[in-house]
C-alpha cells in the first residue's frame, strides 16, 4: 500500500515537472507582455515532432532533444518578432492572434505529418528496482531531466544578467526600461526561452507518449491551469503548482475515477481562479 502511494507519487511528480516546463513559458510571457499565448501548446507538439524525426534519422534521442529545444527557441523568437510584437498594446488582439496561430500550426502539422500517431524509441526502456520499488527507467530519466531543466531555469533567473533583466521587467516594464534594460531584446528572449522549454518538454513527451498533430492541446490546458494556480507571472508559483497538479491527477486517477482524469484539473482551476485570483501563493498579478 505504501509502495503504491510512493509509486503513484513519483508518477505525479514526473508528470507535474513536464507540466511545469510548459507552464513556465506561459506564465513568463504573460507576466512580461500581458499576452496569454494560446499557441504555446503548439511549440510542445512541434518540439515532439522535431525530436521524433531527428531520432528516426540519427537514432539518438539526445540529438533529437537538443535540436527540438533549439528549434523551438528560434520559433518562439520568430513568433515574437513577426506577430506578437504588434499586439503589445492590445491583449484582446494578442489572444485572438494566438488562437489563429493554433489553427494554422495544427493544420499544417496535420497535413504535413499525417494524423497517425507516432511512437518514438526511448533512449532507455524497461524498469529497474530501487529497493522495494520498481521504477520505469524512461520515466525516471524524464523526471531527472525535467527537474534539472526547471532548476536550471530558476538559477538562470537568479544569477545571470539576462535573468535579472527578466525579473526586473516582470516587476515594471517602464522601470526596467528606465534602468537601461533593453526591453525589446529581453521580450524576444522571453519568447525564445519559453519556446525552448516547451520544445524540450515536447521531446520528453515524445519519449513517453504518442506524438500526434493534436497533442498540443493537453499540455496547453494543463499549462494554463498551472500558470493560473501559481499566480500568473510567478515562476516559483508555476513550478509549485505544476507538481501539485501532477500529484492531484495521479492520485485522483489511481484512487478515484480514471475516466475523469482531466476533470480534476479543471475543477481546481475554476476554484483557484474564483477564490484565489492571485494564485495559490498570492504571487501573481491582481486584476488582469
Amino acid at each position, binding site marked *: 500500500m505504501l509502495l503504491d502511494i510512493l509509486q503513484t507519487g513519483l508518477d505525479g511528480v514526473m508528470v507535474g515537472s513536464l507540466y511545469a516546463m510548459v507552464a513556465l513559458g506561459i506564465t513568463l510571457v504573460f507576466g512580461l507582455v500581458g499576452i496569454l499565448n494560446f499557441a504555446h501548446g503548439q511549440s510542445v507538439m512541434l518540439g515532439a515532432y522535431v525530436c521524433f524525426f531527428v531520432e528516426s534519422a540519427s537514432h539518438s534521442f539526445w540529438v533529437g532533444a537538443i535540436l527540438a529545444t533549439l528549434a523551438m527557441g528560434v520559433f518562439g523568437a520568430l513568433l515574437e518578432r513577426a*506577430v506578437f510584437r504588434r499586439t503589445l498594446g492590445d491583449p484582446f488582439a494578442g489572444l485572438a*492572434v494566438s488562437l*489563429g*496561430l493554433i489553427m494554422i500550426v495544427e493544420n499544417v502539422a496535420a497535413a504535413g505529418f499525417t494524423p497517425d500517431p507516432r511512437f518514438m524509441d526511448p533512449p532507455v526502456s524497461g524498469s529497474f528496482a530501487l529497493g522495494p520499488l520498481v521504477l520505469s527507467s524512461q520515466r525516471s530519466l524524464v523526471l531527472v531531466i525535467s527537474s534539472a531543466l526547471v532548476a536550471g531555469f530558476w538559477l538562470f533567473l537568479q544569477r545571470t544578467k539576462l535573468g535579472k533583466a527578466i525579473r526586473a521587467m516582470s516587476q515594471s516594464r517602464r522601470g526596467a526600461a528606465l534602468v537601461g534594460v533593453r526591453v525589446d531584446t529581453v521580450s524576444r528572449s522571453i519568447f525564445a526561452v519559453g519556446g525552448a522549454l516547451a520544445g524540450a518538454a515536447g521531446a520528453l513527451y515524445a519519449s513517453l507518449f504518442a506524438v500526434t498533430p493534436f497533442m498540443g*492541446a493537453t499540455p496547453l*490546458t494543463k499549462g494554463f491551469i498551472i500558470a493560473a494556480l501559481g499566480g500568473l507571472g510567478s515562476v516559483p508559483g508555476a513550478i509549485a503548482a505544476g507538481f501539485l497538479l501532477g500529484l492531484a491527477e495521479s492520485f485522483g486517477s489511481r484512487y478515484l475515477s480514471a475516466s475523469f482524469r482531466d476533470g480534476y484539473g*479543471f475543477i481546481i482551476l475554476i476554484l483557484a481562479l474564483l477564490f484565489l485570483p492571485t494564485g495559490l501563493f498570492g504571487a501573481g498579478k491582481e486584476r488582469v
Partner: protein
Amino acid sequence: MTEEVARSRTQAAHVSAQKLRVKTSILPGVVGWLLLSLLLSVPIVYHSRYIVYLGTLLALQAAVVVSLNIVMGFAGQFALSQSAFFGFGAYASALLVRDLGLDFWASLPLTAAMTALLAAAVGYPAMRFTGGIHLALITFAFGELLRLLTANLHDFTGGPQGMQIAYTPGIVIGFDFGSARGLYVLACGFLLLCLLISIVVRCSDFGRALFAVRDDETLAASLGIDVTAHKVAAFTLASTLAALAGAIYGVFASFISPEMMSASDSIAIVGMLIVGGPGTTAGPILGTLIFVGLPEFLRVAKNYRLLLLGIIIVAMSLYSPKGVAGDIDRLVTGARRRGD
C-alpha cells in the same frame, strides 16, 4: 422667465436631438434586419434539400456568434464558453422532453431559465473577482468541465457516444416545423430574434453602459454604472441565447453529443466574431459567412479550410482589429464625412 424659457428650450432641443440620434442609429440596423429577412426567405423558394440544410446550419451558427457579440463585442468580455452553453441547451431540452414528457416548445423556456441560472452562477464570481484574461481561462475550463461531465454521466446523457433525438417540434398553427423547410424557418426566425435583441440592446441605455464597461471599467464605475451587474447580465443573456440555439440544433440534427461543447468550437466562434467585427450588428453574420462560405467559394480542400481561417484570424487581428464590418463601417463613415 426668459432664462427659464431659454433653458427649457435648449433642453427640449437637446432631447429631440437625442431622440433623432437614437432614431438614426437604429435605422441602419432595422433596414439591415429587414433586408436580411428577405434574403433568408429565398432558400425556402428553392427546392434544393441541401441548400435548405446548409442554410439552417448557417443560421444557427450565426445566431451563436450574434449571442457572443453581446458579451464580447458589446461588453468586451472574453467568453470561451459559447459552445458549452450551446451543448448544454441541446441536452437540457432533450432531457426535459425525454424525462419529463414535455414537448419541444414547452422545454424552451425551461431550458432558458436553467441556462440563465447556470450562467449567472458561473459568471458572477468569475466577473466580480477577476478581469479579462482570467475570465477567458475560467470560461474555457468551465466549458471543458461541462463536456467531460456530459461524457461521463452515461446513464443520464448517453455518454460520449451522444444521444438520439427522436422527436420534432411538430405542427404549430398548421405549419410543420419538423420538416426540413420548417426547421429552416425556425432557425432563421431564431437568428432574426437574436439580431433584434442585439439591435435593441445596442441602442438602449443598457447597451451604452456595456460599451462604457468595454472601453474602461474604472471610468464606467465612476460614472455610477454597476460594472459587475452589467457584465453578468450580458454574459447570462449571451449564454441563454446560445443554449436556445442548441436546443433547436438538437431537433435539426436529430443527434447530439458532448463534442458539441468542444473548446475548439468556442474558439472558432470567437474567430468568426473577430473576423466579422466585434461590436457591430452585421459583424457576426459576415464573420459566419466568411468562415463557412469562403472555403466553399474558393473550392479549397477541406484540410486547408481551418488553416485558411487561422491565417485570416491572424491577419485580421494584426491589421484590421475591427473586423470586416468595422472596416466597412469605417469606409462608410469616411465617405460620409468627406461629403460623398
